[in-house]
């Protein structure tokens, strides 16, 4: 029987981590369906998944995180899932917390649930968290509400969100989209989760990329979204 929740796992060159990620899901959240979206990896990610019989969509060209995630959302829409979960392939996220997030979504009737590192724990005062603090402040400024961990990549989306992410242009799995949704009246909540450091491979963000990420996010939250409509 099909589960009502689909974990979308975008994967780009994740041969080191993909097996442990999927095994974690199977072991700690066996009631969750999953789909790996292989974003044109150049390593053995696809081969490994095929050998093991994992459910994988392989894109013929690299689209980047947003394009890969959207593919998963299209899959969720076509297979009528009630919830879609954004889940990293690099082993940072822990399947054990999916239950808490789903439970919170149902109890509070939240349409977006963020797996948050700082919902119950205090955010550390490190330079790495400066960006996160800034985004929290900007979201508070524009929506009046506080999101402690806007950059968390572990997010659960309810049924009404799936067609929006599947079909609209520029609804990437990023904090500015969350802030836009909040401004449109979508109920967003946070649930405390623990995250691991990357197990293997290289982090996507280096210094230059962080700066350009912050600029893009800031301009999007503070300026662009006041002018955005739906197609």
């Amino acid at each position, binding site marked *: 029987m*099909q589960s009502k929740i689909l974990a979308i796992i975008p994967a780009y060159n994740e041969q080191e981590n993909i097996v442990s990620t999927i095994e974690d899901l199977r072991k700690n959240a066996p009631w969750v*369906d999953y789909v790996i*979206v292989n974003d044109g990896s150049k390593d053995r990610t696809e081969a490994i998944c095929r050998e093991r019989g994992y*459910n*994988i*969509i*392989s*894109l*013929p*060209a690299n*689209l980047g995180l947003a*394009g890969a995630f*959207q*593919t998963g959302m*299209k*899959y969720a829409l*076509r297979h009528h899932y009630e919830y879609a979960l954004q889940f990293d392939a690099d082993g940072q996220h822990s399947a054990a917390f999916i239950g808490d997030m789903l439970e919170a979504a149902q109890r509070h009737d939240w349409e977006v649930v963020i797996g948050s590192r700082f919902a119950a724990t205090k955010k550390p005062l490190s330079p790495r968290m400066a960006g996160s603090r800034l985004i929290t402040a900007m979201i508070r400024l524009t929506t009046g509400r506080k999101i402690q961990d806007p950059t968390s990549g572990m997010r659960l989306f309810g049924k009404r969100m799936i067609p929006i992410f599947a079909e609209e*242009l520029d609804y990437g799995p990023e904090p500015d989209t969350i802030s836009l949704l909040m401004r449109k009246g979508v109920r967003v909540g946070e649930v405390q989760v623990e995250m691991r450091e990357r197990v293997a491979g290289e982090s996507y963000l280096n210094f230059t990329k962080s700066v350009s990420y912050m600029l893009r996010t800031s301009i999007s939250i503070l300026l662009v979204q006041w002018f955005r409509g739906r197609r």
Partner: protein
Amino acid sequence: MSILFRILLIAGALLSFAFILTKIRRSEIRIADSTFWFLFALGIVVLAVFPQVAYVFCDILNIESPVNFVYLVIIAILVIRHFMTTVEIAHLRSKLTSLVQEEGLERHEREQKRTGRRL
């Protein structure tokens, strides 16, 4: 505008004409896209041959040197053109994205049918 500057403008325009024609002959750009560049080069020739045009506008806009008007026109046209290119790239990108996504989803569907398996 000095004679030398006008000759420079015309030479530049002629070079552009030659360049566009080569590209068309080698089928490297579409004829539809070449129109803009032909008109652009033609505009520069007009400004070089009839500098009075630039003088008139300089008087109206209170620009001291006619050369500056020529620069202004060229820069403005290119900025607009560049913006239009950005829009076009965005269109192409979103078409490409949905094609790649569809192809991936289709293949997955076919595999599932072939192996007769649902997750």
